């Protein structure tokens, strides 16, 4: 699989993502945000961090980086784009994903292990993972409180676009297992075409032997299955 990881000024999870894909044997490249060539990837990663210092709104300024126009074209042609944390915020600002990430209800930056439940196996990112599987993935954000209006939520539900929900260790979703106030405990969604994923948790921080959880691997294994199947 060819993977292009975009680096914006202020990205700080680009090397984590790079390392995970590189260790898994994929041809992985770091692409600077001012470049205009994605280098024909199977998958684009918009990594976590604080692009442009989170000025104005998280992700609002990154969408004007030259490479983002290429990312939008790639996504509109059905290409895979995965936005993690700040990458999710950028995807909502570009309009590739609906809704917005608001400030956490607690107003606090939250950095902790978090259980999320797989809500659908109908996507490149979750195929082969049983619905209801609980993944232990870290979160680290202050603006992860997902919001969408009533009509938008109905579309997400009708189209099976909610990919992950915050839950407890047993997979139960409630306000107690919701770290940031996100609507319906939403931790990740996909586009209507299912090729674009945005998620606040960090699977790339839970996918190597050196960290305490390896649950993020399930998502990368699903991606590998998908790309193998279409190649």
């Amino acid at each position: 699989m060819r993977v292009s990881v975009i680096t914006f000024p202020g990205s700080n999870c680009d090397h984590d993502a790079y390392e995970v894909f590189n260790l898994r044997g994929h041809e992985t490249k770091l692409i600077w945000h001012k470049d205009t060539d994605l280098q024909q990837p199977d998958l684009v990663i918009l990594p976590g961090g604080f692009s442009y210092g989170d000025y104005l709104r998280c992700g609002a300024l990154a969408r004007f980086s030259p490479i983002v126009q290429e990312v939008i074209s790639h996504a509109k042609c059905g290409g895979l784009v995965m936005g993690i944390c700040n990458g999710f915020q950028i995807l909502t600002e570009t309009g590739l994903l609906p809704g917005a990430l608001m400030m956490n209800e607690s107003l606090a930056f939250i950095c902790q292990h978090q259980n999320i439940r797989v809500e659908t196996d109908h996507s490149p990112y979750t195929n082969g993972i049983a619905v209801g599987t609980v993944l232990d993935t870290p979160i680290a954000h202050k603006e992860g409180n997902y919001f969408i209006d009533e009509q938008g939520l109905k579309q997400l539900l009708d189209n099976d676009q909610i990919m992950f929900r915050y839950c407890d260790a047993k997979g139960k979703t409630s306000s107690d297992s919701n770290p940031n106030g996100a609507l319906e405990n939403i931790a990740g969604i996909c586009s209507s075409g299912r090729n674009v994923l945005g998620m606040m948790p960090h699977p790339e921080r839970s996918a190597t032997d050196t960290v305490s959880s390896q649950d993020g691997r399930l998502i990368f294994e699903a991606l590998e299955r998908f790309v193998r199947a279409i190649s």
Partner: protein
Amino acid sequence: MLKAKIFVQLKASVLDPQGKAVTNSLHNLGFANVADTRISKYIEVNFTSDDVAHVTTEVEQICDSLLANPNTETYHFEIVPQE
């Protein structure tokens, strides 16, 4: 030369946790009449033009394309002479 005074606010339907925290603090300070607080952004943009109609159109474009997120925010503005 003209200046735009732009206010970007959360839509009424969107919860404002910062506003809620400020309301609680004001109640703690004894301001019992405070019912609600909403936090907004105030942005000033200076123009090199005196054409009110043209600047008004540009400010709308600026707000729609960057300063406000239509999913969660609304805006209003006034055009005034620069001091």
